[in-house]
């Protein structure tokens, strides 16, 4: 069990800088998710922590020990690969016990630890099979078993669920969460799926183009996104984001429509400022069909035409036309609607976000 600390960590390939000096402190037993779109440097960062990639600058500390130049085997980590990377010429038992065999563990110690891991992951019936005889979910479990057998300081997961179908992914997500509760170790989990990150992690690190955009708890990154990128990346369906200009206490959009400037931003903007207005589908809803927590203090109502609807059973996503664009809203307790209907929509402006159009940074602070 250990802390992990990255200081000014940099990765260059030739003249191309992929990771631009990131800093991150991960507490002991914390579950950290690195998320971001493809090519944002999250996997490279994980591979640098694992020792599979050389670092071009900065420091990596695991459990207070500088590991910059140590080979992977000396870092006491284990890793679950996206491809699972099971050894195809070995049985499940041999796969699980491989690291112990290499370390020269005694036979009975090895058997005991393999049995423990196999019990935790429900692999007892599969021990004599080869990876080619397993289903995707079973292979995934063997890969996790191989990781826990080593009893490492830090677990690294590299998009472990992206090769599974949607149903199995949800199931394995729950298993990973249970596993973390059981083994109580530090976990660094890379994914491009924000739902996985939100559900699993204690803290989420959102990366973009080799920089860290924001580090925070799932609630923080959802409710108080630090940048326009984070606001658009976290949450499904994504936040409505539209550029506007501050004028006379109102936000004027490019199409000519306008909304009142939310109260909490009045002191933080000046007339003529270019901003990006953001509102989550949960805070922009058909009147009477919102979360109606009763706490809304600043609701703006307007009648808008419906362009399309996406019924999901318990709720319906309503795309309403405002300022020449489709804004997505979440309709709870849905009633039938069809395209072209005009309905009353509510903007809960107390929960709206404003970002600088220039820097993309939140204007909240």
């Amino acid at each position, binding site marked *: 069990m250990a802390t992990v600390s990255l200081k000014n960590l940099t990765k260059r390939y030739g003249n191309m800088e992929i990771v631009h000096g990131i800093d991150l402190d991960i507490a002991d037993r914390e579950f950290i998710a690195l998320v971001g779109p493809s090519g944002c440097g999250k996997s490279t960062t994980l591979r640098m922590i*694992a*020792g599979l990639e050389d670092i071009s600058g900065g420091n990596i500390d695991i459990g207070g020990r500088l590991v910059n130049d140590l080979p*992977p085997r000396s870092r006491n980590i284990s890793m679950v*690969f996206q491809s699972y*990377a099971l050894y*195809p010429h070995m049985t499940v038992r041999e796969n699980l016990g*491989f690291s112990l065999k290499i370390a020269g563990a005694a036979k009975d110690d090895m058997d005991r630890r393999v049995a423990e891991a196999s019990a935790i992951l429900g692999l007892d019936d599969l021990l004599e099979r080869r*990876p080619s005889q*397993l289903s995707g979910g079973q292979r995934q479990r063997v890969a996790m078993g191989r990781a826990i057998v080593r009893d490492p300081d830090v677990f690294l997961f590299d998009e472990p669920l992206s090769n599974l179908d949607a149903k199995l992914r949800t199931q394995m997500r729950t298993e990973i969460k249970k596993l973390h509760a059981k083994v109580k170790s530090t976990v660094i989990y890379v994914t491009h799926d924000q739902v996985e990150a939100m559900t699993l992690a204690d803290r989420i690190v959102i990366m973009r183009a080799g920089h860290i955009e924001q580090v925070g708890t799932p609630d923080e990154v959802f409710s108080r996104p630090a940048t326009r990128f984070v606001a658009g990346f976290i949450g499904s369906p994504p936040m409505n984001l539209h550029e506007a200009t501050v004028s006379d206490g109102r936000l004027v959009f490019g199409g000519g429509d306008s909304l009142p400037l939310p109260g909490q931003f009045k002191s933080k903007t000046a007339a003529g400022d270019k901003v990006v207005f953001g509102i989550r589908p949960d805070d922009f809803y058909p009147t009477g069909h919102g979360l109606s927590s009763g706490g809304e203090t600043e609701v703006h109502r307007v009648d808008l035409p419906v362009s399309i609807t996406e019924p999901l059973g318990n709720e319906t996503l309503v795309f309403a036309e405002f300022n020449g664009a489709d804004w997505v809203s979440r309709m709870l307790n849905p009633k039938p609607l069809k395209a072209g209907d005009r309905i009353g929509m509510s903007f809960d402006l107390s929960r709206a976000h404003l970002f600088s159009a220039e820097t993309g940074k939140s204007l909240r602070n």
Partner: protein
Amino acid sequence: MDENASARLIRRTLTVAHRVGLFLAMLVICLPGIWIVLSSLRPTVEIMAKPPVWIPQQLSFDAYVAMFSGIGKGGIPVLDYFRNSLIISVTSTVIAVAIGMAGGYAFARYRFRGKSGMFLGLMLTRTVPGIAMSLPLFFVYARLGIIDTHFGMILAYVALNIPFTIWLIDGFFRQVPKDLAEAAQIDGCTRWQAFCQVEFPLARPGIASAAIFAFLTCWNEFALASQLTRSVNSKTLPVGLLDYTAEFTIDWRGMCALAVVMIIPALTLTYIVQKHLVGGLTSGAVKG
């Protein structure tokens, strides 16, 4: 006749036609081999007969007995040739496969300057026919004094085989996912252990086939060997076949008998190694 019955009939006819076709094809492929075995057992008169005698009238092992008899009784130093062939082929195969593994692994796993040029260069050496090299090699070997030695032959065969073994083994290492070696390193292996424990076992079918090809190339090679060998010191079996040609006669029966003796070890080796040639061993390593 209803539709199903006629469909069944067509399917049966096609199956029979398929088998007959396969039998004929196999016959064409195997006939030269069968003919050599037959010819080694029958008198020269029958071998040379026109029209050919398809069904042998008399069979005898005389040629085999004579082959192993002393010189002057129709015998040739077949055991010496056999020993030379074995030493030269096995040694050069082992060296070529070892270098091929190192080279193939490097080409499959590492990025380095001039990689594709080097690879192309290796392939281009395969375009030079062996016989075209025999004269230059003869001059060089004559100066170095390594004509008619095992060392000289091994050197030539290693050089001949390396481009091919590298190419073949490179292809097999490429099929072994890189993740596996990385997983092994995280599991506590050194780079070398990861190779021995994980990558080598998975590429073994490829390495086995490279070994068979290299061995057979050496075992059967005639053009270079006929120039670079002189005596029982280094003459290999294919060159030994020439012992059956005299000024005015060719002992076809003896030659065929020696050819059979040559084929047997090659067949045996291929049979032993072929069980390692099962492909698809990497299936199940990664998703799928």
